[in-house]
């Protein structure tokens, strides 16, 4: 297995943070804790961890159903052995879509590569669309080295997913029921 670091995962989905500093931005911006930095290119879009508005809630990283994400990134110090993962926050759960780990025997500080986005989709339990928070974690010798979060938007149409269809249908039914309640028939004498 190639020795890659947090960078690999964090950069792959654009949640890498600014190096050496604890970055904080406006609400909904990318946040990173720890000395990691990176970039990612998905389609025609280029994301940088040092720009808080990239992959923020107002400007999420768009994840198409197919294609690849090209990433590059680095850590400040060597982490070995290391492991980590990326997780999509769905309600109260965090669903891991990508994980990594190695002894990092070559003591790499940086890595770059390409990931197939379909593999990330396949990790999710059902067709998924909409806006989600993405969290990433990287561990150095068992201890958390850096973590981060950002926002992603699955480009799939909501009307093509079970959850999206349920949402629209439920809204219609509940709306009709509310209108029905407004007609005001007698329920108690």
């Amino acid at each position, binding site marked *: 297995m190639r020795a890659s670091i947090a960078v690999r995962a964090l950069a792959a989905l654009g949640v890498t943070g600014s190096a050496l500093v604890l970055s904080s931005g406006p609400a909904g911006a990318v946040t990173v804790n720890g000395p990691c930095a990176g970039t990612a290119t998905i389609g025609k879009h280029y994301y940088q961890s040092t720009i808080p508005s990239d992959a923020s809630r107002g400007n999420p990283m768009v994840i198409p159903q197919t294609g690849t994400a090209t990433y590059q990134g680095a850590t400040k110090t060597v982490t070995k052995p290391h492991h980590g993962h990326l997780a999509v926050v769905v*309600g109260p759960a965090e669903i891991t879509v990508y994980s990594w780990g190695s002894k990092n025997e070559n003591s790499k500080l940086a890595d770059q590569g390409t990931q197939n986005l379909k593999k990330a989709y396949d990790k999710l339990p059902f067709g998924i669309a*909409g806006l989600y928070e993405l969290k990433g974690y990287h561990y150095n010798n068992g201890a958390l080295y850096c973590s981060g979060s950002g926002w992603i938007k699955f480009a799939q149409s909501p009307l093509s997913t079970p959850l999206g269809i349920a*949402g629209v249908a439920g*809204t219609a039914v509940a709306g009709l029921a509310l209108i029905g*309640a407004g*007609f*005001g028939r007698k*329920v108690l004498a």
Partner: protein
Amino acid sequence: MRGRPILGAIAGLFLGAFVALDLQQFAVRPLDNLSVIGLPALGLVLGIAVGMLHPFRPGRAPTKAPPP
């Protein structure tokens, strides 16, 4: 008592929850605390109000004013 406040409350609660889900699915707003709790709560209040005030009931024919 007239109206359907309980139906209104249930319908409003679910309407708020489904609207929160729609907003998330259409990438307008994530499922954060405000949308998951706030919208259903708002729907609940709206539903009770609609059920009690029954604004959609057929109106009565206006009565003529008494002759002077």
